[in-house]
C-alpha cells in the first residue's frame, strides 16, 4: 500500500499544503482513459494543460500529497514564460519572480566576464526570471484544478504498466490500496529517476560527469542585485566553481563544486555546509552576515537522452526522457518545451486530426532538441567541471589568460537554454517561400514577439491551435483562402486567422492588427501585402509565403497534420 507522507515538508519560506489523496473507493468504476500522465512536475502539468486547451481530457497521477521538496529549478527563461503564458500562469510567475539579464564571472577577485542577455522592446518577458519551483508548481496545480478536463489525483503512484495493442493497462497504488486503470496513452513525466523508464528497460545515451556540486538555499540579506555570480578557482575551494543566484523571499542559491573523492553524505554534513558557505560569504566580502539553511542537495552533471521518446503507448517527456546539466538552465526550461510539443501533437492524434506519425515527429523533434542541448551544454560542463587532466589544463589556461586577454573571455559564457528550432521538421511545408525570406523567423523557429501597444503583445493572441498571420491592407481575406480556412475548421482543425497591416477590421480574420509604422512586417521580413506565416499550435513556424494562395495553404496544413 502506497503511503506518502502527510507531514508538510520543512521550509523556512514556503508553506507546504498537504492535499487529500484521491481514493478509488470514493469514485465510480474507472472508465478507460484517453491520456494518463504519470508525474505532476513541470512537464506533466504543462502537458495536461496543453491537452486540455485542445479539448483532450487527462488523468494526472502524483505519488506525493504536496509539491516538491526544495527550490530545485529556480531560473526560467523567456521562452518558458511564453509557454507558461499559454497555460495561464506566466503573470503570477512574473509578479512573484525576480527578473534579470546579467551574469558575472570572477577569477582571482577580478570580474573577467559579464554576460548581458539582450532584452528587446518587443519582448514581454525578461531573458530570465528567478522563482522557486514550489511556486511554479503551485501555480500550475491551481491552473489544473481550474480546468475541468484535468483529473488530478494526489497520492496515486503508478506501480505497473502492461502494454497491449492500442492500450496500456496501469496498476496504481493509493493509501487505501491499488486499482487498475486502462488508457490509450501513458505520458511518462515521472522525472529524472523515472520508474517507467526503468521498468521498460530503456537505456539513455550520452555522458555522465564526475564533478559533484552541493546546491544549497539559504536565507540571507545580501545587498546585491539579481545577477548570476560565478566564481572560479577561489582560494577556499581551489580548482572548483561556485555559483550564486538571488531568489525571492530573501533566499539565495549557493552551488559549489566538491573536491574529487568527497561523498554526498560528507558534503551535506551541517558543519561542512556551514564552513563552506561561511568561506564563500567571506570571499565576497560578507563574512559574518547571519544566514539560515533551508534546503540542500547534491547533483552531478549528466548529458543523457533516450534515443526515442515513443515506446508503444508510452510517451516520455521532461527529465524522464533526458537528463541535462543545469549549466545554462536546461532542466525545467527544456521540460516546458517538451510538454508544449507533446501536448499539441498528442492532442491532434487523440482527436483524429493526425495519424500516429505526428507522435514520431514529436520524438524526432525533441530528441533532436535534447541532442543539440547536450552538444551545447557539454561544452559548458567541460568548462565548469573539467572531466580530465587535459580539460582541466585548458580551463585553467583560459582562467589565467582571461585576466589580461580579452579573446578567451567569451569561453566563460555557458550558452543559455533557448528554444530549439525545428528546422528539419517533417511538418515544415516544402512548397512554401521559406528560402526566399531575408528576415523573420524561418522554418521551425519560434515566433518573434511584437509589442502591439504598451501592454499588448502578439504572443498574447497566439496559441491553442494553428495561427495564420496574413499580411494585408485589403478589407477582406481573399475568398479562396477563407474557403480553405473554413474547410480546415469543418474538419475540426483549430485555426485562427490574424490579419496584419490593415487599418480597420479585415473580413474573414478573427483578429485584425494594424501595423501603421510597418514594424511588424519588418520583423517578419514581409516586403508586401499577401505574405503569410502559418504557426503550429506551439507557435513555431511551419510555413511562410511571400504570396499566399489557397492551394499552398491547404498543402501546408496537410503537411503539418500528417495522416
Amino acid at each position, binding site marked *: 500500500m502506497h503511503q506518502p507522507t502527510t507531514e508538510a515538508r520543512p521550509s523556512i519560506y514556503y508553506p507546504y499544503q498537504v492535499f487529500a489523496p484521491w481514493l478509488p473507493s470514493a469514485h465510480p468504476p474507472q472508465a478507460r482513459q484517453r491520456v494518463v500522465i504519470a508525474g505532476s512536475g513541470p512537464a506533466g502539468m504543462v502537458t495536461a494543460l496543453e491537452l486540455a486547451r485542445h479539448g483532450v481530457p487527462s488523468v494526472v497521477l502524483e505519488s506525493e500529497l504536496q509539491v516538491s521538496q526544495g527550490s530545485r529549478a529556480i531560473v526560467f527563461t523567456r521562452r518558458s514564460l511564453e509557454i507558461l503564458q499559454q497555460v495561464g500562469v506566466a503573470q503570477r510567475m512574473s509578479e512573484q519572480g525576480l527578473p534579470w539579464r546579467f551574469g558575472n564571472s570572477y577569477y582571482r577577485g577580478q570580474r573577467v566576464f559579464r554576460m548581458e542577455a539582450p532584452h528587446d522592446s518587443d519582448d514581454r518577458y525578461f531573458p530570465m526570471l528567478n522563482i522557486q519551483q514550489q511556486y511554479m508548481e503551485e501555480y500550475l496545480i491551481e491552473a489544473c484544478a481550474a480546468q475541468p478536463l484535468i483529473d488530478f489525483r494526489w497520492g496515486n503512484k503508478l506501480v505497473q504498466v502492461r502494454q497491449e495493442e492500442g492500450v496500456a493497462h496501469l496498476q496504481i497504488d493509493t493509501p487505501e490500496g491499488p486499482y487498475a486503470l486502462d488508457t490509450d496513452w501513458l505520458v511518462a513525466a515521472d522525472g529524472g529517476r523515472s520508474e517507467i523508464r526503468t521498468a521498460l528497460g530503456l537505456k539513455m545515451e550520452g555522458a555522465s560527469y564526475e564533478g559533484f556540486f552541493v546546491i544549497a538555499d539559504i536565507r540571507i540579506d545580501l545587498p546585491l542585485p539579481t545577477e548570476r555570480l560565478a566564481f572560479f578557482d577561489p582560494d577556499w575551494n581551489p580548482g572548483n566553481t561556485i555559483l550564486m543566484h538571488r531568489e525571492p523571499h530573501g533566499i539565495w542559491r549557493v552551488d559549489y563544486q566538491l573536491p574529487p573523492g568527497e561523498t554526498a553524505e560528507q558534503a551535506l554534513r551541517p558543519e561542512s555546509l556551514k564552513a563552506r558557505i561561511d568561506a564563500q560569504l567571506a570571499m565576497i566580502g560578507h563574512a559574518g552576515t547571519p544566514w539560515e539553511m533551508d534546503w540542500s542537495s547534491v547533483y552531478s552533471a549528466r548529458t543523457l537522452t533516450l534515443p526515442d521518446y515513443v515506446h508503444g503507448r508510452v510517451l516520455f517527456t521532461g527529465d524522464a526522457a533526458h537528463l541535462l546539466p543545469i549549466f545554462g538552465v536546461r532542466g525545467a526550461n527544456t521540460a516546458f518545451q517538451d510538454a508544449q510539443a507533446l501536448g499539441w501533437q498528442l492532442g491532434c492524434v487523440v482527436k483524429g486530426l493526425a495519424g500516429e506519425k505526428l507522435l514520431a515527429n514529436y520524438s524526432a523533434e525533441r530528441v533532436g532538441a535534447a541532442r543539440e542541448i547536450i552538444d551545447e551544454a557539454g561544452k559548458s560542463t567541460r568548462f565548469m567541471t573539467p572531466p580530465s587532466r587535459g580539460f582541466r*589544463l*585548458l580551463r*585553467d*589556461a*583560459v582562467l*589565467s*589568460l582571461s585576466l589580461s*586577454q580579452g*579573446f*578567451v573571455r567569451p569561453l566563460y559564457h555557458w550558452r543559455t537554454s533557448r528554444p530549439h528550432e525545428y528546422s528539419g521538421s517533417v511538418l515544415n511545408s516544402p512548397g512554401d517561400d521559406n528560402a526566399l525570406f531575408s528576415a523573420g523567423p524561418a522554418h521551425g523557429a519560434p515566433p518573434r514577439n511584437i509589442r502591439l501597444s504598451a501592454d499588448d503583445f502578439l504572443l498574447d493572441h497566439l496559441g491553442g491551435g494553428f495561427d495564420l498571420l496574413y499580411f494585408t491592407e485589403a478589407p477582406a481575406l481573399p475568398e479562396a483562402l477563407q474557403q480553405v480556412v473554413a474547410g480546415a475548421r469543418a474538419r475540426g482543425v483549430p485555426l485562427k486567422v490574424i490579419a496584419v497591416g490593415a487599418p480597420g477590421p479585415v473580413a474573414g480574420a478573427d483578429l485584425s492588427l494594424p501595423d501603421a509604422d510597418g514594424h511588424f512586417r519588418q520583423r517578419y521580413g514581409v516586403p508586401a501585402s499577401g505574405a503569410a506565416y502559418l504557426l503550429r499550435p506551439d507557435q513555431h513556424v511551419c510555413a511562410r509565403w511571400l504570396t499566399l494562395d489557397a492551394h499552398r495553404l491547404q498543402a501546408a496544413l496537410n503537411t503539418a497534420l500528417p495522416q
Partner: protein
Amino acid sequence: MNPETPAMTSETTPSLPLSGLEDVYDALATAIDQAGPDKAELFLVKLALLNAQQLGSASLVREHIEVALKDL
C-alpha cells in the same frame, strides 16, 4: 592577417629564420624553468592558446597538434 595565408602552412618553409628559432628555443626553455615543474604545462597551454589566436586558423592548429603528437 588572412587566416589561411599560404606562407603559414606546414607545406611551406617556415618564415622564422634560424636565428629567430634559436631565440625562441632559449626563451621557451628559460620560461619553462621559470614556470617550474608544477606550472610548466599550464604555461605551455596558455602559450598555445595565444599562438592559436594569432594564427587565426583552427585547422592549422589541429595540424600542428597532429605533428606534435608524433614520435612522443
